[in-house]
């Protein structure tokens, strides 16, 4: 800075600098004592949107609960009477054919033929 203009500018800035330095707050008051946690203010628009969302969700749940049919208590079941939901898959028309073995002299079709008459002879 050798120009007279530069020197004049430097002098003006120096005056401003010394004036600003007198206004500087004490250093100790500027230094954080503990890590600061900045609280970021939520813009009011976001707050309003969040509140509206909560109202909609709560309202929807309430209306859904009121419109639903009342729940009936299931009858108590015992372990012996319990049936698996998939048990129906085990039902097939010829299941009886594969049941327990027939006694000697009996036929597998006996159980399907109605016993209308019983032979009561004297026998040979």
């Amino acid at each position, binding site marked *: 800075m050798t120009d007279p203009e530069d020197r004049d500018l430097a002098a003006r800035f120096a005056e401003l*600098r010394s004036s600003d*330095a007198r206004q500087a707050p004490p250093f100790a008051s500027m*230094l954080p004592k503990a890590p600061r946690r900045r609280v970021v203010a939520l813009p009011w628009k976001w707050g309003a949107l969040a509140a509206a969302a909560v109202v909609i969700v709560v309202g929807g749940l309430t209306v859904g609960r009121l419109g639903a049919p009342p729940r009936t208590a299931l009858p108590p079941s015992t372990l012996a009477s319990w049936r698996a939901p998939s048990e129906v898959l085990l039902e097939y028309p010829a299941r009886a054919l594969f049941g327990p073995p027939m006694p000697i002299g009996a036929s597998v079709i006996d159980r399907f033929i109605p016993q209308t008459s019983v032979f009561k002879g004297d026998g040979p």
Partner: protein
Amino acid sequence: MDRSDLERELERLHPESFGWALFCSGRDRDLAQDVLQEAYARVVSGSARFQGRSAFRTWLFGVIRHTALAERRRAWRPGALPVEAALADPAPGADERIEEAERREELVLALTALSPRQREVLVLVFYHELTVEEAARVMEVSLGSARTHYDRGKKGLLARLSQEVRR
């Protein structure tokens, strides 16, 4: 640098840092204090870390500049120097000459006529006595760009100040 070293350096540079924060905050004293407090918190907490690639002062001024930009964006404040804020500085005391206060006001008003980049480079060079190269580092621009801003800014500032003198 450990915390005590950092604090010692910050304290040594505090008046200068406040001056730079004032310029980065559009000469708004309250905003400058907020900016400086936030910048110190970043430095002390380690979220801004000095790695010795430049002088500590150059690096610190960069942190203050970034913090001021972020604060202004957050608070929706314009980047230009508001004249009202510049002139709202405390009135000169009884021991201060009125003439000196007027010269300061002229300078601040003349600076408002410059572009932000021109203002930054002139403040860094004339107010903080940095070289143009150091100013370029603080401003994160190339040396050539900083020189251009410096030359144009100086011409503009001198023209403006000579107009003020003629009035």
